[in-house]
């Protein structure tokens, strides 16, 4: 759902702020595209559904229900499949959330970002900290054990102590899943312009490193499993949907700007493709209406490219890349054959950042924090 009521100062996702949304039209197109792509992919069973955006909680529960029905109609959607909806605290009243639950949603991801009003203003968010709290509490009542919150750190001008306070507040409030993101200043956003223009300070690299580590320690101490670079879960509340990204499984993107990775057997192809749907909603709608789907770009991924994705994404998780999964994408060359020989991987292992053993290849706790620096070296080795 690409629409938002307001632009946040840091966001560079595919979002649109329009005075009026023709919900019926968008709904019809989402339904149509879902059906078309599902048929194209010949997928038989769905493991999870994720509603992202934009601000999906601005869509009416009816639209969510319609999409889910369409999915269930074109493939098998098990009753216990994870269905997540991204929610903005300003559109998360109890009745509304209940409506989404009735429509079939069984998990919520709430864009809290911060529990400090001044920080929220800096980020251009639509809600206050109090509203965020209410939203999380309402969510936990309706979706106990299935609510996740998003947190941002590394805001311009944010001090260590401010982050520590924020963490504490968040830990007291959260359910069993937390997504932690470092604020990235993207070119073209209001926040980036402010920092560049000098009216806001740039956060120091060391401070950012400290904030991340403080957060990891605090979350682990509170019983969370650090199962992915940015994601923490306790009592087994991992996000099935996101795991499928990192395990390089198949996923279908529906809606403006959505991404997908699947094999379009329906067209007679047998190669995994990377696909993107048209970004601009009006253009996307026209395309869906005329040919059933609004795929803007599709690129066949070569075996090497697929392996690169498996590597880069798999290492983000604590389980890493299993021998079995690697074998599926690389039947001839095992993990040992690529990374077990003298080279970058061995050096990194010696440094204690990487582990290669019988179960697979993964980063150590310390290595996970440095992943961005390790990957290019490993990619080089893989290419050879």
């Amino acid at each position, binding site marked *: 759902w690409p629409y938002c009521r307001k632009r946040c100062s840091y966001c560079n996702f595919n979002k649109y702020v329009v005075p009026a949304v023709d919900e019926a039209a968008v709904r019809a197109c989402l339904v149509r595209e879902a059906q078309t792509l599902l048929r194209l992919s010949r997928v038989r069973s769905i493991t999870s559904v994720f509603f992202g955006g934009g601000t999906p909680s601005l869509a009416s529960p009816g639209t969510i229900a319609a999409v889910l029905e369409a999915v269930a109609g074109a493939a098998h959607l098990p009753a216990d499949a994870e269905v997540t909806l991204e929610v903005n605290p300003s559109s998360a009243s109890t009745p509304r959330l209940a409506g989404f639950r009735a429509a079939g949603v069984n998990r919520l991801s709430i864009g809290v970002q911060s529990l400090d009003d001044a920080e929220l203003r800096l980020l251009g968010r639509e809600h206050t900290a109090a509203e965020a709290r209410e939203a999380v509490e309402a969510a936990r009542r309706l979706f106990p054990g299935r609510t996740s919150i998003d947190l941002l750190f590394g805001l311009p001008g944010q001090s260590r102590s401010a982050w520590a306070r924020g963490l504490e507040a968040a830990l007291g409030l959260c359910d069993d899943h937390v997504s932690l993101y470092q604020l990235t200043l993207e070119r073209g956003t209001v926040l980036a*312009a402010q920092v*560049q*223009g000098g009216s806001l300070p740039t956060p120091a690299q060391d401070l950012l*490193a400290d904030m991340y580590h403080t957060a990891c320690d605090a979350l682990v101490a509170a019983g969370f499993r650090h199962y992915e670079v940015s994601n923490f879960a306790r009592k087994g509340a991992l996000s099935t949907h996101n795991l499928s990204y990192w395990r390089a499984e198949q996923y279908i993107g529906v809606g403006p700007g959505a991404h997908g990775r699947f094999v379009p057997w329906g067209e007679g192809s047998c190669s995994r493709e990377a696909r993107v749907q048209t970004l601009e909603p009006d253009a996307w709608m026209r395309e869906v209406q005329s040919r059933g789907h609004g795929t803007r770009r599709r690129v066949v991924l070569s075996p090497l490219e697929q392996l690169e*994705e498996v590597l880069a994404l798999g290492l983000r998780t604590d389980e890493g890349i299993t021998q079995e999964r690697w074998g599926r994408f690389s039947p001839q060359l095992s993990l040992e054959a690529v990374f077990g020989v003298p080279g970058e991987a061995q050096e990194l292992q010696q440094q204690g950042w990487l582990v290669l053993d019988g179960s697979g290849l993964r980063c150590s706790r310390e290595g996970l924090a440095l992943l961005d620096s390790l*990957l290019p070296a490993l990619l080089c080795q893989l290419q050879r």
Partner: protein
Amino acid sequence: MALAGRTALRWARLWSPRPAAGALRLPSWRPAACVRLYGSRGEEKLDMSMYPVESIRNFSIIAHVDHGKSTLADRLLEITGTIAKTGCNKQVLDKLQVERERGITVKAQSASLFYNHNEVNYLLNLIDTPGHVDFSYEVSRSLSACQGVILVVDANEGIQAQTVANFYLAFEAQLAIIPVINKIDLKNADPERVEKQIEKLFDIPVDECVRISAKRGTNVEKVLQKVIEKIPPPHCNTADPLKALVFDSTFDHYRGVIANIALFGGEIEKGHKIVSAHTKKRYEVNEVGILTPNEQPTHKLYAGQVGYLIAGMKEVTEAQIGDTLFLYKQPVEPLPGFKSAKPMVFAGMYPVDQTEYNNLKSALERLTLNDSSVNVHRDNSLALGAGWRLGFLGLLHMEVFNQRLEQEYNMSVILTAPTVPYKAVLSSAKLIKEYGKKEITIISPAQFPDKLSVSEYLEPTVLGTIVTPQEYIGKIIVLCQDRRAVQKDMLYIDEHRVMLKYLFPLNEIVVDFYDALKSLSSGYASFDYEDAGYQAADLIKMDILLNGNPVEELATIVHKLKAYRKNVVAKCYGGDITRRMKLLKRQAEGKKLMRKIGNVEVPRDAFIRVLKRQTDK
């Protein structure tokens, strides 16, 4: 003369002011798109004698970043008919691609506007100034050619760091200041509050403020009228000998250096022989003219007027900002305030691969053709090969420079922290004989003599002056202490501002001190420095061990207290995987340029990370 007079009269009739409300009516012979007014160069030359000194106003627009300087400039150009009014006039005076992209002005431009008010034809010279603090020297030179400024303040944001800094520059230059409150069309505008801020901080009465919307054009004509009423004409005489200030220069491949000049006395025309006060070199004038904003030749330029000059100069260093030009055999007192650009931020610049060296060399030469404020010295690193040590006016200057290198010359470079020249006083007779002297300069870590052979190490120092509003004193003192600086002086220059003098080791300020200072003072603190000789220092050579063997190339010289490293954090974000893969693969490509040392292949990245500034824990 008669012909020129008639021509000038026709122009004067054409450029009379339009009714503010209606659309601009353009003379029928002019094409509709945003094109220059006049015909091609070389045709009818303007006669500038039509504009006596009393009808001239030289002014600048100053403001904090993004408060609307350049948009106001666009509107003024449109109202006076200098450019056609169409939708595409966006920051017309910003000519560089990087300026348009980032929405900033890097080089100052000027334009001469003609405006009729109360039956009199006025010549208004507008000098657009860079908004960013890195370029305050350019701003001050442009201001010295003006008698007044328009101070633009955003009606919502109010007074900001650059507003204050620029106000002081204008105030100290004793210029008339016209406060203009912009963006009144926006929802959060609060002009009344801003007017009170202006009255309180700058002591300018509320009723002198003009409220406008540069974007919509609201009230902009009033600004022009205020310029005529409040800004005095220049105080100079055409009868005096020639005295011209160079306040900018650009390099044109076909015509050579084009110098922007303001005449403080006398007159200038083609054929005159002039001399530069700074270089003492002599030139013959080929062409003079005004900028509208493109070059429009004229017969002559007279005292009080602003325009350009082409005189056979081959490099922009021959026409430095702040220089004075006078007629051969009629030397004058040079205009005060000239100084060579002082670099604040330094970086080592190396080609990604040594095979690219020559390409980078010519790219650097061409870029610096038009930017005489970049300091360039050749340098050599064992790890990265031959390269340069560059000095910039600030971090933005360096970023813009880097961006232009990438965009205009397609060059990717490695930027590293530079070396500073340390010294050692030798105690070993053998080494003294080898070097031929007792005190040597150490250019690279490989040359670092062992502690046993040295009686004393020395490091270069500078005396830094910081001017800041008092609320930041605490944080600044901590910052300076963190950089091993010793306070030499502290005094209150007025009830709001303090001046601090610190003695800094040079290596502590060469990369990010300036940026850190600006950061923690929200841009309000300023910094300047001068060489202060050498002082004794406790230096050690930090060896990096790889597999237990010291790697010479990676060694750096650091002060004992600072030999620690911090690890890099992976960026964690949700989002598009394709984009991330692209970025990673690009990094992998970079990694492919590896350097073999012994049996170990060390990724270039590791070199760079270590050579880059290490901060302490």
